[in-house]
């Protein structure tokens, strides 16, 4: 009995759809509303933004813009240059390259299940996918194109004006509409066909090692009670294995750096020194495919990541208390923080992490380059 959802839930969904349809039936000629193809065990309480409902035409336009190299100053780079489907929308680099081989200072984040996130970028500086989408176009180290110039190029194009017309009922192309279309496409990037998903749906069994890994992943250890845990699920929550979507609760200092070397992180956004060194806890779907790891891409392998959490936590004033307090052995002194997982336990957690890989997601033709 894993997650058999009660039968009435189906009814609730149907009712939800019916009422939506009623509201939006009026403009018959407008774009076709669609709903996200998400499993019922994903959070059900996240509404589509009222001013950017998901439509077939909006998603189609967004997909083209996502792969559109015209949106970079020299026409060589698109969103998809750093967010490549076969790598779960990352690029395999420590830092990403923009136009003229400019180099950024953060690791490209994987794009999946974004509808359930509330803050974007490693430092959480954007609150919506719509506003986020514009920034890389303008960033000098990324696509380096003033947004007005992007608008002008799309206006001058033979096909885009009519695509905007179809999606938004206006040929007027604006930065806002570019952001909306990109956001719509990105919301459709749902990864929910991994082995972990099949296990949730009771379709497969996990191997004993994967199952041990799952248990460890979601357990905060308590050595007094001989409760062993890997302490991962404290920050990577639930089926999404993603950060807490409430406020800044999903941002943590995970012990990468000492006090002296602590980067600003979330403090850049909040101005609160209490947030120094905190970064967004990303969703771990497809983590096997998204190396290197951490906001600065410092770890090449999952083994290195596990070793970090097990043995190399750097203590600082904002180190997350859930890490500071986590150990599988009663600590002898409080000068070091060690998780004390065994080699086999670390391996088991990695085996579980690999069940988050979703082959359908990285080969889904709906997410691929429409110009090919």
């Amino acid at each position, binding site marked *: 009995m894993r997650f058999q959802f009660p039968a009435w839930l189906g009814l609730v969904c149907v009712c939800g759809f019916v009422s939506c349809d009623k509201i939006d039936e009026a403009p018959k000629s407008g774009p076709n509303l669609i709903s996200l193809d998400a499993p019922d065990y994903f959070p059900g309480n996240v509404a589509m933004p009222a001013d950017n409902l998901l439509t077939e035409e909006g998603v189609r336009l967004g997909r083209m813009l996502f792969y559109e190299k015209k949106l970079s100053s020299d026409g060589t780079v698109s969103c998809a240059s750093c967010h490549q489907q076969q790598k779960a929308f990352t690029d395999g680099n420590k830092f990403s390259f923009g136009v003229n081989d400019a180099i950024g200072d953060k690791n490209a984040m994987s794009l999946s299940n974004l509808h359930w996130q509330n803050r974007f970028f490693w430092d959480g500086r954007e609150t919506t996918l719509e506003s986020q989408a514009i920034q890389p176009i303008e960033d000098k180290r990324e696509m380096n194109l003033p947004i007005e110039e992007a608008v002008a190029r799309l206006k001058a194009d033979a096909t885009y004006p009519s695509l905007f017309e179809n999606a938004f009922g206006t040929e007027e192309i604006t930065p806002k509409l570019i952001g909306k279309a990109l956001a719509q496409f990105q919301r459709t990037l749902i990864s929910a066909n991994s082995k972990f998903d099949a296990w949730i749906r009771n379709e497969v069994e996990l191997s004993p090692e994967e199952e041990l890994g799952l248990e460890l992943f979601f357990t905060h250890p*308590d050595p007094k009670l001989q409760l062993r845990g890997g302490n991962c699920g404290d920050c990577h929550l*639930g089926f999404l294995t993603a950060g807490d979507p409430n406020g800044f609760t999903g941002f943590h200092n995970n012990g990468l750096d000492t006090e002296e070397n602590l980067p600003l992180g979330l403090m850049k956004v909040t101005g609160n020194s209490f947030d120094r060194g905190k970064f967004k806890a990303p969703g771990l779907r497809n983590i096997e495919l998204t190396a290197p790891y951490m906001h600065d891409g410092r770890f090449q392998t999952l083994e290195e990541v596990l070793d970090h959490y097990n043995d190399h936590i750097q203590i600082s004033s904002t180190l997350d208390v859930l890490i500071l307090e986590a150990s599988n052995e009663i600590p002898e002194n*409080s000068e070091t923080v060690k998780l004390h997982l065994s080699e086999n336990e670390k391996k088991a957690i990695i085996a579980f992490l690999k069940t988050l890989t979703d082959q359908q997601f990285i080969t889904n033709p709906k997410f691929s380059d429409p110009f090919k």
Partner: protein
Amino acid sequence: MKNLIYTALFSSLLLFSSCNEDEVPATMAVDISLDHIISGQPLELNGKSFTLPSGESFTPKKFKYYISNVKLTNSKTGEIYVESDSYHLISEDGNKSIDLGMIPTSNYDQITFSIGVDEIANGKTDQTGDLDPNSDMAWNWNTGYKFLILEGEFTNAKTEERQGLVMHIGTNANYKTITQSVNGLKAGKATTISLVTNLDELFVDPNSLLLSELESTTIMFGEMADKVAENYSEGFITIK
């Protein structure tokens, strides 16, 4: 989505309304608000420190708990309103109110609710709404829900080192039911019942906690967790 059914005894009310000129509406809007206080001040989770009853300084970072099975009683007439599917995740940086919607009219004078989730709901994690296991309130797939989470940090008085406090309280034995008298609920009148949740009460009465003396500052299962639950069973949530 809230799905309300009413379990109440109406006979006396019906008699009244049939011979009364100023008819009292059959339903009334009631909601419940919760204020979180610590050390006599509003709770903040942004790095501010507060003094605990022990005199120790504590910086809270996360505070969440379940209120469930809300019931209103009119002790004079015996009328009872029971909210169905009554599970509410309350958190400092999320929801701090409970909207009961339109409920059968009565001069209710008692409110009853529980901290945590009942044994039936705690036995499965295939639930939606506030019991959605995607929040960090579900322990894992077998252990049910955390009823209350308080996380924060303090400086250990003995070692002078920064230490974390991780309170994750759950398990069926720690499901505690609270009844309080309420004033001012008038039949037919929209009302907000104001409750106050005092975090100090997690650390005292009857069990005093001195953070620097704790054997372990991870309080999840076992004796310490039960002691905290005993503390929250009385005086933790009260009428304002």
